[in-house]
């Protein structure tokens, strides 16, 4: 006999929430990844795309990165140069402009602070001094739900 469970729809909702969250997350992080990569060295487009899609959790199709690179180029953060190739179409190499590098540093700092704060949350020290009268925040009692 099969026992029907009520937590099916709830799991689906949680899954959907997680999917949306990862999409938002990727959108934000992908610019950082590209600028970080291009700040340190010049990349051949194909190799850059392959490297980016290999980052765990980035999870975008290879073809989606080119529009992103094009946008960054239009914004003056990335520059390109073409190099003739005897094996096929000319190869396009990408690198970050000074503005792009500056932005990458700023984004990295910001991301690092976020990360620290995030880890602080886990350690329970991140919110010290933020609560009224130095009181410890009330514990969340899982069993109450």
């Amino acid at each position, binding site marked *: 006999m099969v026992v029907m469970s009520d937590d099916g729809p709830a799991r689906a909702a949680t899954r959907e929430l997680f999917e949306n969250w990862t999409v938002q997350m990727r959108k934000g992080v992908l610019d950082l990844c590209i600028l970080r990569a291009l700040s340190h060295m010049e990349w051949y*487009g*194909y190799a850059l*795309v392959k490297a980016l899609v290999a980052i765990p959790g980035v999870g*975008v*199709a*290879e*073809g*989606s990165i*080119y*529009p992103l*690179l*094009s946008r960054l180029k*239009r914004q003056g953060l990335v520059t390109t140069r073409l190099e003739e190739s005897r*094996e*096929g*179409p*000319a*190869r*396009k190499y990408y690198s970050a402009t000074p503005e792009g590098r500056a932005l990458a540093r700023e984004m990295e700092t910001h991301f690092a602070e976020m990360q620290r704060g995030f880890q602080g949350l886990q350690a329970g020290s991140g919110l010290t001094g933020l609560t009224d009268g130095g009181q410890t925040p009330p514990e969340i009692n899982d069993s109450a739900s």
Partner: protein
Amino acid sequence: MKQWTHHAEQRLVEYLRERVAREGLVGEEAEEIKADLRSHIHEEAERSPSTSIGLMELESILGRLDSGYVPPVERPPVRPRKGGAFRKFLSWTFGVVMPAAVLVFESVANFCGGVFFDPVPTWWHVAWIALVPGVNAWLLTGGRGGGDRSRGTAAGFTLVTAVFYGLLFLPMIHLSVLALLIIGMGLLSLTPVFAAITTWRIGRAANSAAGSPAEFRAGWRAGVLASLLVLCVLEAPALWTRANLTVAAEDGAGAPAAIARLRAFHSERVLLKACYEGNRGTQLGTDIAGWLLTGWRIPAAMIDETAFRSLDSEKVRDIFFRVTGVPFNTLKPPSSARGGRLSGRGDPLEDIEFDDHLGGDDVAVRLKHLDLAQSRFDGHIDAASQTGYGEWTMVFKNSSGEPKEARCQVRLPRGGHVSRLTLWVNGEPQEAAFSTVSKVKAAYKAIAVVQRRDPVLVNVVGPDTVMVQCFPVPSHGEMKIRFGVTAPLDDGRWRLPHIIERNFGTARTLEHAVWLQGSLPFNLTDGAKTHAAQRDGDGHSLPVTLDGTATLRAGAAVVAGPLPAEPAVVWCEDRFAKPEERFLVREPVTKSLPAADRIVVVVDGSGSLAGFKEPVIRSIREAGEARITLLLADDHVRPVGLKELGNHAFTGGRDNEAALREGIRIARETGAPVVWIHGPQAVKLSQSEALMQLLERGTVRPVIHEVEAGSGPNRLAEAIFRSGCLRSGPGLAGSGSALAAFLSDLTRPREERSWNWKRLPAAPAEGRQTWDQLARMWAAATVEDPPAAMTDAARAELAARYQLVTLFSGAVVLETKQQYADHGLEQADGNASPHIPNVPETSTSLLLLVAAASMLFRRKRHA
């Protein structure tokens, strides 16, 4: 590098196009992304284990590359429908073969163009239509070398063309079907209708076969829009012109506005074609725009004949002038783009032409195959009598299969009269008979129009203007005529006669061979060029060959000089006078003329005056604006100041009748002279009787000085010059200084030279003998002197006796003596006709002196 299959390459192109469209990218950005993706895909392909890249390999790469990728749906193969072969036959027949054949036939034969309307008036139309069979054939063979979008674009483009022509021929479908059933013809006019249906079916089939119907439809929409744009460019100006022309010709309240719209924008080709329509009583034989406005009435015309009400051709020609400022017959008559080489039906080299003005008083329509082929002018200037005589020989050539009448208006030297007329009949020169205008016209019409034999007629039609007409210029043959002109020198100048209106063209090789001679040195000025006469015996001569356009333009003139300030007393033996009056003496006298307090200046607002605006304004300012009443002839009459005159846009051809009437009315009230500054006036008068009444009645006869800005037909001057009120003023060429001096002179007392004539029974002791042209000058002055107490019949008789074409007399050459006798005419004696002296003529007295000296010398030797 790996090999790609054709399908894979094509698929990649389609994918990239679809991908950027999906991303919403356009322009440079889209191209960049396409290049990036293409490069990426090529890298992937190079890394794949396959030796070559086919569709499957590519689809696999695309699947990895693009998360939103949907592979194309495989369409099930279309099963051939029943009767497919027959359908294919019909598609090829009516979509390709027949449209191409009909286009070629119509282009060569102008068959439809000569009867209903010209469906291919320009080469652009030919190219536009030729795309229909071309594209249909391409689509029927699979549209190789193009994608879905380009196939769609081609199908949409040609569908508009095919449907447009299908609709054009739809109104005559019943006639076509009847013709097909009864006489087996009619397929020509049915083809465009069938082609429209077939083109639509071919396009639909191509859409069904398209790999990407969305692409095909996008292309189809672009093609339709492009073809509509072509249609607008080709036909919208014509339609606009036709629509406004119809309103303008109806003479309703909207006519002036329609003419103003046409002045702003019009198609000259369409206006000119409309001038030549209506000769056959219908508007058929028109162009596409004309057909669009009238073709739909065809079914009604089978029941009601009045459904095809033609526009009045005369009115259309007036409108042409009002809009363009140019008389319609100064331009080459319209012809189909391809020349209509087979449309003569019987003769493969000519168009059918209707000349319903044969033997008439108007020059009217230009004939396509009639040309002035040769031209020769011989002139002699006599300094003593200050007169000139010239003979213009013209050879007309007719390259059509029908005999034609050549008609032209010729502007003579100022104060000139035709004094000789010759026609070559069977190679022999025949001299004219001079008689009353009615007699010579009746003889010409009887011989030319009824008997269709050889006459030539010259009569006066305007100030210093004669109409010359000769018939028949034989089919594929020539006709040679010559007329002589006697005219006084005008301030030392003798303007060469030129044609101002004609119904013929000029041969491409036409030259105007001019021979001039005179007793004193002289020059021939022709625009900026001056040709000086050379010493020739006792006199001077000048042979010069001018280009053919010299026969048509004003400006060439003989400038004699220097002449004595006071002309000498001269005399001649008058062979036409009674013995007791045999010797005619001319003495110069001066006449005092009073100053005018005011001057009425009427300025023609036509485009022909545009180039003379500044000189006219400057002349009026120099003469004193305060003394001048300025009227602008702008179809209506507008009293203006110099500032308004300066602001006026001189465009089109403006009717001067209203302004001139107002000018004459003011002149009658104030006694002021009228100075009428004008260009050609090719508009018929609307209220000629009212104008003539103003000129003929009352005790004050107004004086109108005309100042011509450009040579051309002038209906208004033709109407009023018989009243004797019209005087020739200065020319308007150059800076206009002559006009300024003329206007200033009118406002102060001045002296004018005149002549006193005396007759004696014997040669006078004093004065200088001169040629007998002097007698003709006397006769012309007497005949056209309004105060002279002579009846019209007496004037005509006097003019005829002196062999002069005047207001009261004309000249006609007939073929046989019997014809002269039948019409009560007496052919001029060839010996009495004026002639050009063989060499610069020594005076008769000098000849007598030489003869007497020779006799004396011989007697002395005998002694």
